[in-house]
């Protein structure tokens, strides 16, 4: 159904003004009211066919501000207030849940990163101290299966007679360079995630605080 342009403009203008004046109410209530008034105007004016009739109907409803004021009763305001605080609570609870889950993931990933990096460093050092016993050992078992193990020490001898070291001296750079790199990477990743998830409330000025920390 197409309305004459003048009618459409007058109705839209009136409803937009009404909506603005009802902004303190719950959105659901606001939409309900605006749609009901729209239906009333269209019903009253045979769908806005005659602009003069539309004008008369809008006048009968009163100024948008006055009409809105009659809607903003104590009950409606209380409803809006109760709704606002309940959505606020839900939002805060949601934020906490995300924060805690993300924290858990950060802890698990960090623990894995630090352990693996630390292990590589230890194995690298072990390779220097017990070069014959330390290595990435591949062992062919008697039943045909294969065991892969990273080990070091144990009397500076291979873990089994038929064990074969896959890496040899490569274990040294891998342990002593890749290990610290993984530890550092884990630290950077953890710090980056933490900053994203829990941004600082306000910037702390380290330069300005330095003289105080010196004392």
């Amino acid at each position, binding site marked *: *159904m197409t309305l004459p342009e003048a009618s459409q403009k007058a109705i839209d203008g009136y409803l937009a003004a009404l909506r603005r004046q009802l902004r303190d109410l719950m959105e659901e*209530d606001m939409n*309900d*009211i605006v*749609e*009901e*008034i*729209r*239906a*009333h105007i*269209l*019903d*009253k004016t045979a*769908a806005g066919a005659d602009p003069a009739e539309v004008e008369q*109907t809008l006048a*009968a*409803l*009163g100024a948008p501000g*006055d*009409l809105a004021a*009659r*809607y903003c*009763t104590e*009950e*409606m305001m209380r*409803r809006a207030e109760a709704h606002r605080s309940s959505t606020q609570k839900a939002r805060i609870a949601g934020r906490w849940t995300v924060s805690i889950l993300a924290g858990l993931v950060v802890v698990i990933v960090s623990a894995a990163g630090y352990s693996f990096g630390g292990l590589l460093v230890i194995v690298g050092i072990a390779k220097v101290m017990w070069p014959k016993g330390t290595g990435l050992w591949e062992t062919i078992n008697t039943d045909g299966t294969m065991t892969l193990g990273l080990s070091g020490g144990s009397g500076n001898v291979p873990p089994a007679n038929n064990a074969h070291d896959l890496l040899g001296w490569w274990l040294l750079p891998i342990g002593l360079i890749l290990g610290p790199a993984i530890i550092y990477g884990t630290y950077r990743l953890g710090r980056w995630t933490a900053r994203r998830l829990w941004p600082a409330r306000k910037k702390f000025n380290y330069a300005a605080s330095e003289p105080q920390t010196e004392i």
Partner: protein
Amino acid sequence: MNERQAPNPESADKWEVQLRKGSLELAILAALWGGRLYGLEILRHLESGSDLVVAEGTVYPLLTRLRTLGLVESEWVESDSGHPRKYYSLTAAGRERALEMGRTWARFAASLNNVLAPLNGLVREEKP
């Protein structure tokens, strides 16, 4: 029919406005007694059944208020006119309230009529 524009607080006009305003809630509840109606139907019902001059800008907010009080409930119903209409119907609490208000009104009207007995002849003459 804007009650804010009552010119003089002492005037009979203002008293009448208050009277209409006070009885509008009961009139609306009574209009819905027969079944669900949408806003404009309620307005037309009130205007055709009485000489109550009802301001449109008063009825709609009052309907919303009655709904928040749980006396009426509303539902949107599609219509042939191209837009949905919001229909109102009485809740159990609304029915109870309508009966209670109706009884109070009847009692009040009867008592006031008794008190007004001395004016009876004169008041009736005024209305053709």
